[in-house]
């Protein structure tokens, strides 16, 4: 019996090893490239470095702060109101829109010859687009805007996942009611009671947002500054250069970005520790500020922006020639959709890989959560966040080398492994709050009634957690669908997915094609999020 118990106690090693072994090997291969004195010297001597690094940090900090504030505002306004369920559904839809798709759509709205400029031209009579940098502006404002649009729904969605924990929503409403009886406005209740509890639990998603903001490449290529670009874009270019010395300089730059992310995270923790006493005294000083009577409808803005972006993508996908300042294209073309249809074979590859890697991620995440106490999540954090923090190209280089050494390059199995390494952490981050928050009394009751553990899991716990499980699966699915570099390198380019097809065609700069594939790329995850949302609906009480 004790041997069995010991085996049970060691069971966590299985998911941990399955996830960490390939990741550690890949990280080792990837990072060993960046530890090269000459490369660092070359990097530090590069005249573009100071400005590029400043831009990366600036866009990362601005987008993280703004997205966090907006998420707080949106959740505060909507939770507990009848809008809440609809809002969480629309947020899922927003998450499904891939980063690049959002960037392209936003560029079409904002650019000097874009929809907004054409609307203004109707009044000003411009015959040519204004010579103003409304996208790729030197300060990265367009990039920050795109990041905020993309990351706010992610944070709202994570907050919703926290609130979805069994009973959590009711508990919060109860606390707010008590605060209300003491004369606090609803907004004060949120700010002084709910958020101080909720925000620390959003530390991991916030870290992911921060890391993404600093290391983002794909969105920065479309919307970010160019002269110089952000350091992440420079690192990406160097890493993909044909010259090996350049590759090492790129690896060094990538490592520098990872260090910045880590330092930023440590600073944030320190600020929170130091600032807590001051905040505590403010929360408890007893004043009763009123809620603003007309709060900004942030969520409505956001939904309008997403609708405009998707509409823009649809429009551009069939627009051939669209000369300024005309509203209507001079030539229409269905060519892009015909091309997309012709590559329908890639659909099954994409779907198969996404289902397989999301399943793998889910199995690993559940296995980890079932076999470890909650306090262990902190220990796992460095590994969980490595795939998010280490710039993509660096980790892909490592995964690829691993695939080469194991002879799995060019095979679907190799790509599945690579996608799983990326998908698993996101699944875990999405699932952990709800899973960890599962009321242990329910588990104990079931066990006390003589149900063996597998039956308890299968009949009680997992059905009760089906909403967060389905949502986490959808997240893993979306991560796999969006993979480009790992699919291309580990698969030796032999297995085309929707995303690789989209990006290789986009390299020809054909906008209608990029728009078409961006829409298709959004469609699969959107369907998955819809399915997850359907699963999450409370069962009928019949």
């Amino acid at each position, binding site marked *: 019996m004790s041997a069995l118990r010991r085996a049970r106690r060691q069971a966590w090693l299985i998911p941990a090893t399955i996830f960490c072994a390939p990741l550690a090997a890949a990280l080792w291969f990837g990072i060993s490239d960046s530890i090269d004195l000459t490369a660092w010297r070359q990097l530090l001597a590069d005249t573009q470095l100071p400005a590029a690094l400043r831009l990366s940090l600036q866009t990362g900090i601005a987008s993280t702060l703004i997205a966090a504030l907006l998420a707080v505002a949106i959740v505060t306004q909507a939770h507990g109101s009848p809008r809440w369920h609809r809002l969480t559904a629309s947020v899922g839809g927003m998450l499904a829109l891939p980063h690049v798709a959002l960037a392209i759509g936003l560029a079409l709205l904002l650019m000097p010859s874009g929809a907004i400029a054409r609307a203004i031209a109707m009044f000003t009579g411009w015959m040519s687009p204004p010579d103003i940098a409304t996208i790729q502006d030197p300060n990265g404002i367009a990039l920050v805007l795109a990041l905020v649009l993309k990351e706010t729904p992610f944070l709202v969605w994570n907050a919703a996942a926290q609130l979805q924990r069994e009973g959590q929503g009711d508990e919060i409403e109860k606390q707010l009611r008590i605060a209300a009886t003491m004369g606090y406005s609803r907004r004060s209740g949120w700010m002084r009671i709910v958020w101080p509890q909720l925000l620390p639990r959003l530390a991991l998603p916030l870290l992911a947002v921060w890391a993404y903001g600093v290391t983002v490449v794909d969105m920065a290529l479309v919307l970010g500054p160019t002269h110089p670009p952000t350091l992440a874009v420079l690192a990406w270019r160097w890493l993909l250069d044909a010259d090996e010395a350049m590759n090492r300089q790129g690896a060094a730059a990538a490592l520098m970005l990872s260090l910045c992310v880590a330092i930023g995270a440590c600073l944030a923790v320190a600020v929170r520790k130091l600032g807590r006493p001051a905040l505590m005294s403010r929360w408890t000083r007893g004043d009763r500020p009123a809620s603003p009577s007309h709060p900004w409808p942030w969520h409505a803005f956001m939904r309008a922006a997403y609708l405009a972006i998707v509409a823009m993508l649809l429009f551009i996908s069939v627009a051939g*020639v669209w000369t300024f300042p005309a509203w209507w294209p001079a030539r229409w073309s269905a060519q892009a959709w015909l091309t997309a249809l012709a590559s329908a074979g890639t659909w099954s590859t994409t779907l198969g890989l996404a289902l397989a890697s999301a399943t793998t991620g889910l199995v690993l995440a559940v296995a980890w959560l079932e076999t470890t106490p909650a306090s262990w999540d902190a220990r796992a954090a460095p590994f969980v966040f490595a795939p998010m923090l280490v710039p993509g190209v660096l980790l892909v280089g490592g995964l690829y080398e691993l695939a080469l050494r194991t002879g799995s390059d060019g095979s679907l199995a190799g790509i599945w492994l690579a996608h799983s390494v990326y998908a698993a952490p996101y699944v875990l981050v999405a699932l952990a709050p709800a899973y960890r928050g599962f009321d242990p009394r329910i588990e104990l009751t079931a066990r006390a009634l003589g149900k063996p553990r597998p039956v308890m899991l299968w009949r009680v716990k997992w059905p009760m957690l089906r909403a967060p499980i389905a949502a986490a699966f959808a997240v893993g699915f979306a991560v796999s669908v969006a993979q480009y570099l790992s699919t291309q390198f580990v698969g*030796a*380019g032999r297995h085309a997915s929707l995303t690789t097809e989209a990006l290789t*065609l986009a390299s020809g700069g054909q906008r209608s094609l990029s728009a078409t594939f961006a829409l298709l790329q959004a469609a699969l995850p959107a369907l998955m999020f819809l399915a997850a949302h359907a699963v999450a609906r409370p069962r009928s009480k019949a």
Partner: protein
Amino acid sequence: MPAHDSTRRQLITTAAALPFAAFAPDAWCSNDWPAIERAARGQTVYFNAWAGSERINAYLQWAGVEVDKRFGVKLSHVKISDTAEVVKRVRAEKQAGRVAQGSVDTVWINGENFLAMKRDGLLYGPFGEALPSYANVDTQGKPTTRIDFSVPVEGMEAPWGMAQLTFFADGKRVPQPPKSVAELVEFSRRNPGRFTYPKPPDFHGTTFLKQVLLETSSYRTHFYSPVVTEQFDRHTAALWKTLDALHPTLWREGKQFANSAAAQRQMMADGELLIAITFNPNEAANEIAARRLPESVVSWQHTAGTIGNTHFLAIPFNARSKEGAQVLINFLLSPLAQARKADIAFWGDPTVLAVDRLPAADKVLFSQSAMPGVVAKSAPALPEPHASWVDAIEREWTRRYGQ
């Protein structure tokens, strides 16, 4: 790889006996082509080629059907967005000790990617000049088929298509296209904020700089030998003087540049810019045919000539199907395949062959009716300056305008 070894030995013992041997003293001629064709039968060739154009992809699909039918070689187009990906992949394979059974059989390549692969021993060959179809390549009229960005090709890749710096614009908005750098500067002065060029080191941007360099210098010989540092300032003074005059009149006052030639084309199509740059003289015609540009778009080259170069096909050192790759490349160099490639209805990529030397039956394949958007009057192709100039000019450009 016994087949490979014996072929190689025969290549070395049989001296070149082709008409252009005088210009190609190191050309090998294989008298055992049939053996290569036999070995190729049943092989699958993973052809890693940039896939940013549906028309190119469709052309390769056609080529796949043909080589399967004729030689029993299966073609698999591995679609990539940047050839540097392939260089990285082959290098990683070499470092991992994968000396045979590599993942790439043929790669579409030129310039710095070729230089990197050749220098690092990542290529198989020489094979190019031993291909039977190579006999028709216009090595005299198109010297860039033997020198890729100043790097001697030496048979380590086979020429596939020609490129020449070309400008295009909507004829309705630019009725009098500027046909020289001087006219271009004047044009931009009269239309401020409506011209730019891709930011160097983008390949098209650097080519534009080289074009200005050559066109503003009356004496050009020194550009075809390595840069002499002490003379650099004197030799490039005219270039910087021209750019200093041009930049304040450019899009964003020359403080920003287009990201790529494709981005510039899109901005031209939207009306944000007036002139776009390309390396494919038929690009505008292609885009018109694909309904992405209006039919009023015209293409032109500078009267005194524009920079031209060649793109190639190479075989990595560890390719699995080296014979299949050679059979494929030989087919792609045949008059039939080259004529279809040159046809704007399919791709519109100029041929590397000497069409006037072809037998009459093959020559007919190349005849083509005029289409909207083609270059009305071709200008001579100027060879690329020596490779060392690229780095020197890019560095100086970044120092002057890069911040």
